[in-house]
């Protein structure tokens, strides 16, 4: 018995020694018993697996670094190496899917599906799939989010995303319902903002204002919520509060072009041309390709009866957005004032094609 124990340790030592050299250099001791051989083999396999696991994880880590550096092509190579070595490596599939997103969505979905099949407790791959589906088929995306909800009733994000998709489908009431479900699980400023915007679209400005204010209470740093609140007050005709909240939006983000343009637009409506010019110019200085600001600048010059300058800015707005309906409508009005009646009518035809009904009224009355 002692002899046997001694022999076992000797063999272990010998085996470890040989592993530290090279697998090829393993000396098969034909004198070993079957049990001893089996044990030796299991150790070899274990070591082989350890080495492969190590290689796979290294490839994954390299891929992750490349992914973070947005080097998606090389990241894909590394994630592929990782899953070739370890076909059950869910995270590698997940990140390879993210690399495929946009360039090859079918491969992305395939990898997300593989990732979810390997780890069905993690819904991230399903969110990824739904995100891709939402590009081409909102209903398919909604179905995927519902799969998440049916698997777990605590997925606030799934409710939120469905709400956004309903919003995109212009099914505002169902969007509100989804946002409400999301809020019941987690009170998030963005969700309150989005539900508020839906209320606003339904002309329920009171509830919209209430939600925007709650959103600001939850996160007072988000400039766009102040801007949205301001625009809602503007819709209500409360110009004082509107101006105040546009100003707060600007104070939260001094480069927030939308808020400058919106406040300028409000000043213009209030016939405060001087302040309108300051804000619109500021909007243009922040983003010199922001078409609405050029449209508003054109409107300012039109108000001043400086039609040549007005036309210059409407032209600029249209050059930035060839389908800018309001700019066509406005340019038509200015062109009419310069007696370019053909030009005016052509602009109103375009504005009508782009969905502005009042353009048709102008066409009927002034262009027949």
């Amino acid at each position, binding site marked *: 018995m002692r002899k046997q124990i001694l022999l076992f340790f000797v063999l272990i030592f010998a085996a470890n020694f040989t592993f530290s050299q090279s697998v090829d250099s393993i000396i098969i001791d034909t004198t070993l018993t079957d049990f001893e051989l089996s044990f030796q083999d299991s150790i070899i396999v274990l070591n082989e697996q350890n080495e492969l696991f190590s290689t796979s994880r290294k490839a994954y880590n390299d891929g992750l670094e490349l992914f973070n550096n947005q080097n998606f092509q090389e990241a894909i190579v590394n994630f592929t190496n990782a899953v070739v070595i370890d076909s059950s490596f869910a995270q590698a599939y997940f990140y390879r899917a993210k690399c495929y997103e946009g360039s090859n969505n079918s491969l992305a979905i395939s990898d997300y599906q593989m990732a979810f099949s390997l780890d069905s407790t993690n819904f991230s791959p399903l969110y990824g799939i739904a995100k891709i589906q939402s590009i081409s088929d909102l209903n398919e995306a909604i179905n995927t989010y519902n799969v998440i909800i049916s698997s777990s009733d605590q997925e606030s994000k799934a409710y939120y995303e469905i709400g956004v998709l309903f919003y995109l489908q212009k099914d505002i009431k169902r969007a509100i319902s989804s946002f409400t479900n999301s809020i019941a699980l987690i009170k998030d400023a963005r969700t309150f903002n989005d539900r508020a915007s839906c209320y606003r679209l339904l002309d329920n400005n009171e509830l919209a204002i209430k939600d925007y204010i709650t959103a600001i209470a939850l996160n007072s740093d988000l400039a766009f919520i102040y801007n949205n609140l301001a625009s809602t007050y503007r819709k209500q005709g409360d110009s004082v509060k509107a101006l105040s909240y546009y100003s707060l939006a600007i104070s939260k983000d001094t480069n927030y072009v939308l808020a400058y*343009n*919106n406040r300028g637009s409000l000043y213009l409506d209030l016939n405060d041309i001087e302040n309108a010019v300051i804000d619109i110019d500021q909007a243009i200085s922040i983003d010199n390709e922001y078409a609405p600001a050029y449209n508003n600048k054109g409107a300012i010059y039109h108000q001043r009866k400086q039609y040549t300058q007005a036309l210059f800015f409407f032209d600029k707005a249209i050059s930035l957005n060839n389908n800018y309906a309001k700019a066509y409508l406005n340019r038509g009005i200015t062109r009419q004032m310069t007696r370019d009646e053909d030009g005016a009518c052509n602009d109103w035809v375009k504005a009508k094609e782009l969905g502005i009904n009042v353009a048709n009224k102008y066409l009927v*009355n002034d262009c027949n």
Partner: protein
Amino acid sequence: MIVINLKRILLFLTIFNFCQLLLAQNVEFRNANFRAAKGGLKAAQKSIKIADEFREKALLNFLSIQDARIESENAYLHYQKAHSFNPNNADLNYKIASVLLFTNRKEFAKEYLDKAISLSAEFPPEFYFFQGMVLQLDGEYTKAIESYQYFMNNAKKKVVEQYDILTKRYIEECTLAPDLLAHKHRIWVDNLAINSEYDDWSPCLSADGELLIFTSNRKNENIINEIGAYDQDIYYSNLSGRNFKNISSLSELNTLTDDVSGGLSYDGQRLLIYKEEDGNTDVFESKLNGKYWDQANRKMGEKLRGGNTDADETFASFDPPDIKVYYITDGGYSSNKDIYFSGVMNRERNIWGKGQSAGVVNTKFQEGSVYIHPDARTMYFSSKGHNSLGGYDIFVSYVDELGHWGKPVNLGYPINTPYDDLFYSATASGRYAYIASNRAGGKGGLDIYKVTYWGADKPMTSDSEDQLMASIASPVSDKSIAEPIAFEEKSLTVFKGRILDGVTKKSIAAAIDITINKTGKIYTSAYSNSATGKFLLSLPAGENYGISVVAEGYLFHSENFDLPKGDGFNMVTKDIELKNIKVGNNIALKNVFFNTGKWDVKSDSYAELDRLAALLAEILSLRIEISGHTDDVGAESFNELLSQRRADAVVNYLVGKGVDKNRLIAKGYGQSKPVESNNTEEGRASNRRTEFEIIEN
């Protein structure tokens, strides 16, 4: 100090002498001034004498509120002869200015008046009356009032009495003018490209705004009259793009004497003109027959009956329901031009009611033109009365439910000016109108101007965007669009289209009746033009109408349509196709084609044959013969065979479309029935044809 005073005195004397010298430039028509040109002087004096007589007549007319243009033109012609001999006579320049004020060249009166003032400081008190008129034309209302008042205060009592009505009238005009001018109308008034240096006036527009008929005494082939003017002729112009660019003489109505357009029916198919017969002017009507205007017949009854009197009836307007004619007569209650109307009592026998005054639109001053808008509720007329800015102004009046015309409203500047602004002819939409005016800055005399109402100020739409969804980066634009302020909208629809043969698309002259289904009454009737098939009706919106169309040889057509009360003016275009059904009618199928020497029906024939198949499907009693014809090229036997096979091919096509073969006969006539000479290519082309004849119904 004394030296300085002497210098000042010297300077004063120099200036005084210089002024005297300037004033002394007034050159009297005396022998002493023209010793070397006694013949010329004598002729000039004679011209002045003749001109003075015309001026006296002109003044008499003027002071009795009558037209003084002809006498003034005559006076001007003769004064000009003297003026070309001696342009530096103050009195002559003043007289020229005064007579120009009664013509269509009144803008040049100022030039002569200023010259007169530069030549002399002494004028008769009447001078200040005419100076007031010139200042009024120039918009110098305060100064004009001062001149009129100076005249009133300084002229002899008898003269003041003669001028009393007019002076007070003009002072009133000058007093009211600033208020009228203070209101800014959003209107453009543009001189038309078709105007000439002569008088271009009396514009008459079809309701769709596409045909303009007007009058002009521009140069023509006739002989000029005693004042060097050509006779008035009628011209027309078709809208080209947005403007009237080319004109043509309406030659079938024009004669060697004056021919003047008065009013055009809204569909452009009937024209009222006026002309003189045996020293008396009446309104006549001409109808468009195809491409040409028929000879004009006296409107409003026989001579000296109905609306026609021994006074002159001139400018007229159709009443859209075609029951009345409104017209200008010299025989008004105030013994000057007034607006009257006459209603039809028996159209077939041409019996019309006696003329009646149009009511409060008439004044003791002259009314110069009348126009009833296609909406049948609105009258535009010109008058020297009411609150005119000076001369003729254009006014609008609306009729009430009892048929009474309401208090006129001045259309204001820039339609009206202190000059003569008259006539008014508008599109059914009311958006565009045409007027005539002798205002300053025109091309000469009366010119036609286009009035564009550009409505309420169109608001600018400012744009704002919001980031409505936190997770969606792209902002959402505000959907609201600035709505224009509502402007006066005439709820009137122009219903226009063509009456066509359902198979051949040939234009058809048809009688059209429009019935208001709610009342069962015929609202209006019209005829489509035989040359173009066009018809045009102006209908109030918000009704359900029945339209019935009758044309000889065609199936009666009727249908219902709604004209919803909508957003202001509307234009509905509809072509109506009639079914040809008369036995014996032979209709050429001009759009049926075969390849040369072949008889397969070409695919571009299908549309016409499908229409024929549809006609046969609708009227099951019809039996037709399809006939094939050729030219005389080739052997006669071949042509006969070819035409038979072509007729067979057409029949087969129709059978393929479901027409019972027993209702069709195919017949090839070869070259035996030519419709044109075979000696020309055009003739041969006409002879190569397919026809169908209705043989049973």
